[in-house]
């Protein structure tokens, strides 16, 4: 077994044949979240970050140079769903960091709840990301805003949250689903449009299109000016 530390802090890799898989150190050893494989190395357990199940995982597989999420980061995660990706974010930030995991669907948040009860660095929030003033009482200023919601005005929602909760020089990470913004437009056009909007307020430090893992999706890693 040759688990290695990645250049990105809090991320680990392992060679599997010719392929490289990404891992995070499991904060709750013995417990997996979505059927991912685990690997042991000494006392520690690592969970595979399955790149076909998670947009952030896909970004890693596409060699993103910055994740915007580090050990110790406080993260506002918008669109946490059942917590597939959020659980890895929780692993990366560790017990010195924190994840505010928000979603507006009560049914999926039920599964998220089980996760938050196990992980002491995760807090569940049911709210619409469009209305930051409604959950301002359940969060703090954060080092990173991560957003993965399929909404037409996802870029505006993202910006609103960065304005409200992201510290200066903090990272904003936005996953864009072209089809939710505009079904008729070509994905590239949509991405271009979102880029122009983001650039008016933030510095884009990395950008990856996520196909073939996530069709017609891309991810922007930005820094708040």
């Amino acid at each position, binding site marked *: 077994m040759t688990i290695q530390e990645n250049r990105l802090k809090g991320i680990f890799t392992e060679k599997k044949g010719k392929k490289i898989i990404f891992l995070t150190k499991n904060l709750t050893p013995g417990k997996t979240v979505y059927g991912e494989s685990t690997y042991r190395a000494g006392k520690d357990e690592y969970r595979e970050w399955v790149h076909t199940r998670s947009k952030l995982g896909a970004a890693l597989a596409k060699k993103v140079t910055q994740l915007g999420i580090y050990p110790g980061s406080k993260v506002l995660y918008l669109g946490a769903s059942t917590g597939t990706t959020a659980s890895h974010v929780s692993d990366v930030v560790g017990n010195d960091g924190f994840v505010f995991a928000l979603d507006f669907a009560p049914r999926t948040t*039920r599964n998220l709840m089980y996760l*938050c009860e196990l992980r*002491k660095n995760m*807090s*569940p929030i049911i709210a619409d990301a469009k209305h930051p003033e409604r959950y*301002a009482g359940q969060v*703090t200023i954060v080092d990173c805003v991560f957003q993965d919601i399929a909404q037409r005005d996802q870029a505006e929602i993202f910006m609103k949250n960065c304005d*409200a909760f992201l*510290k200066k020089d903090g990272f904003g990470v936005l996953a864009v689903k072209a089809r939710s913004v505009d079904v008729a437009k070509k994905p590239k056009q949509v991405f271009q449009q979102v880029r122009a909007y983001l650039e008016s307020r933030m510095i884009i430090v990395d950008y990856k299109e996520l196909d073939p893992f996530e069709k017609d999706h891309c991810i922007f890693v930005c820094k708040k000016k």
Partner: protein
Amino acid sequence: MVFQIFSNCIGTFLFKDGKIAAEKLFSDDQIISYHDKVKEGKEIAPEKDMLSKNAGAEVLRGKIPPGPVLKQFSEAKYLKRMREASIIITKREIAESVRRDHLIIQASNNIEETDKVINNLAKRLREWYELYNPEFSKSIESHEKFAEIIQEKSRKELLEEIGLKEELSMGAAFSTEDLEPIMRLAAGITSFADLRSEQTAYVEKVMKDLLPNVNAVAGALIGAKLLARAGSLEKLSLFPASTVQLLGAEKALFRHIKTGARPPKFGLIINHPLVSRAKSSVRGKAARMVADKISIAAKIDFFKGEYHGDDLKKELEAKLR
């Protein structure tokens, strides 16, 4: 000096130039009772109290507080309590999110699934039973009736009903032991059929209570299926008629958008008697009109308006006559 008062999910705080100068932390019980009020932008008792001691302080309510205020809560002790509070609040919100339209949706989906199960099991039953009695099966189309009657009557009796002698049948001789599992399967199908009719009665009852207007215009089962596709009464009520008309045809619609294939004209609504019975030349128009009325009915039901079901239905029937 700037004095500000801010309440979040863990307590009420007095800020002096952006630093916490006084705090009233909530107990677990208070967390729940204050949360709704704070979210609605209403004043809560601890705020009133703090304001009386610090006249002139600005109360930050119903808006996003400035960064320096929010930053104070990143301290570990506050974060820990915030997590506890959010877990309490979220659990209650999940419990309260369950409404009766969700129950209709579960029952309606279950009816669709039960139909599939009955269909699959009945096909197996017929294959199996036909080894023993091939001729009778074709005389009865309804799966449910078929399952029932083969439990009640012997092969000899059934063959007589279609005017055949048992000795001349193509069926094999079966021992009681070999017949038994077939009869158990038939009994299982009968009990699924009973389940289906009980659940149908339940859906009809709750639809009538909760969506009386949709129920009158669409019928209970179609109404319930539309509700299930929409996801909730609220969503159904917000859909324009053109969307209601296509609910249940999402795949075809998507194919149309992606590949330019012909757009679907109707979804589930095709099963509505006024649409299915319409001549094919006017079926599209009928679907549009029925969808239109269902959409109006859903809006009335969502806003708990009066019952107009009979009028809506009559108007529709008059137009489509």
